[in-house]
């Protein structure tokens, strides 16, 4: 049960009704509708940060699913496990991002491993990022891509705390997809991999 009331279509404020016109807009939109002036700008930011971009959906899902796993956000892990599958990630890659198998085992490509190490440092720690995470990532990835994914990670951290703090429920459709694709609903806590913080 969510910790807050999620308005339905009848109680949705005037300026949010458009989001309810097609049926249940999901618990994040319903929750944000309680503060109508936040809904459109928040969705615009989240949509830009998590949606299609120069980085491509594969690397966006690296950032989103890995960040959510490090934060232990059940709602976002559930939702983005299915998105990652739909984006074409292999089952092992999804398990790696979820922390169910080591990243090295799931991602043989060195460039991708450096990116995941950098994501772990960005999303799984506080303080400046260790050179051992920065330098390899800089060899493979341009600044603009790291800026884009940093924005994705930041938006995901917001959604992780929002969904976890309010205990937003996973939709039945997502639960069904997880069963179909063989991914567990319960997820053990995930530790970031590699050296994260600069001394």
């Amino acid at each position, binding site marked *: 049960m969510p910790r807050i009331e999620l308005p339905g279509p*009848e109680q949705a*404020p*005037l*300026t949010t009704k458009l989001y309810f016109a097609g049926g249940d807009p999901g618990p994040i939109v319903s929750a944000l509708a309680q503060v109508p*002036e936040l809904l459109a700008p928040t969705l615009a930011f989240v949509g830009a940060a998590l949606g299609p971009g120069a980085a491509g959906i594969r690397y966006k899902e690296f950032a989103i699913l890995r960040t959510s796993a490090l934060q232990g956000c059940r709602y976002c892990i559930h939702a983005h496990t299915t998105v990652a599958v739909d984006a074409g990630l292999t089952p092992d890659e999804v398990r790696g991002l979820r922390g169910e198998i080591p990243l090295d085992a799931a991602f043989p490509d060195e460039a991708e491993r450096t990116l995941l190490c950098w994501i772990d440092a960005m999303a799984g720690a506080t303080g400046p990022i260790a050179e051992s995470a920065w330098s390899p990532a800089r060899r493979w990835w341009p600044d603009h891509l790291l800026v884009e994914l940093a924005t994705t990670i930041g938006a995901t951290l917001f959604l992780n705390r929002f969904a976890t703090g309010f205990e937003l429920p996973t939709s039945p459709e997502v639960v069904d997809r997880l069963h179909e694709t063989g991914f567990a609903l319960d997820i053990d806590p995930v530790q970031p991999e590699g050296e994260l913080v600069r001394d």
Partner: protein
Amino acid sequence: MTDILIDHPVAAAVADGTLPGRVWLYSNYHCNLACSYCLTESSPRSPRRQLEAATMLSVAEQAAELGFTGLGVTGGEPFLLPWLPETVRAMATFLPVVLLTNGTLFEGDRINRALLLADHDVALQISLDSHRPDLNDLARGEDNFAKVVAAVPRLVAGGVTVRIATTTAGPLDDPGLDPLRRLVTSLGVAPENHLVRPIVRRGRADLEDLGVEAEARDIPSELTITADGAFWGSFGPTVRSGRLDTDLLLTRTVLPLSAPAQALLGVVSGMPAGNDTNLGIR
């Protein structure tokens, strides 16, 4: 005299009539009465949901800057707030104020609090629903009629501008209201200061199956400020079974007033004309 921000889109919208000129404030939700058709389920046990005096003053000042032309204060019963007359008097230095009250808290020396509003740009709007005490008190509570008809002449004699508001479940031009119209005149209130309006089916009236159905576009789009946020119309922030209706919520932000005013303008600009005139809600 406050300078109007003439280049502000809200000021332009008020000036050209796109937005109504009045801003409403729900000073509080609790009330010494518990009327059967109350939009806000107000009663002595209601949560106060009270605006701070400083917030009310800021709303008044910023409303004037944005080109609004008047203020309304309602509740609950505003006179339950001890600081209310002084605050409303200060608000009236920015814009004219209509202050809604049930008129039952003015017995004896307590009328002096209302007389503080004499000779200021404030009109007291007092509810009276029937010329018959039994019918009036049926909906509004015991001794309501006697208290109102005793208070109104004293207020008028004291220099307070008084309007009478009648809420009816029947036709607004019902000849059965003529004795009430005569009574109002006899209390010293001019006919043009007697408003007759329908019950709107929201709040407790909805639960009691009373009043006229009204959608957002039927309700005058007067910006309405409460402790819970800003709403479309003074009929917006209603309460049903103890829960605040949010279907007409505009923003949780109330200050700066330009924030909810802009949100209201955005909604008004995209909405077709309503049926408010036919329903008599204005």
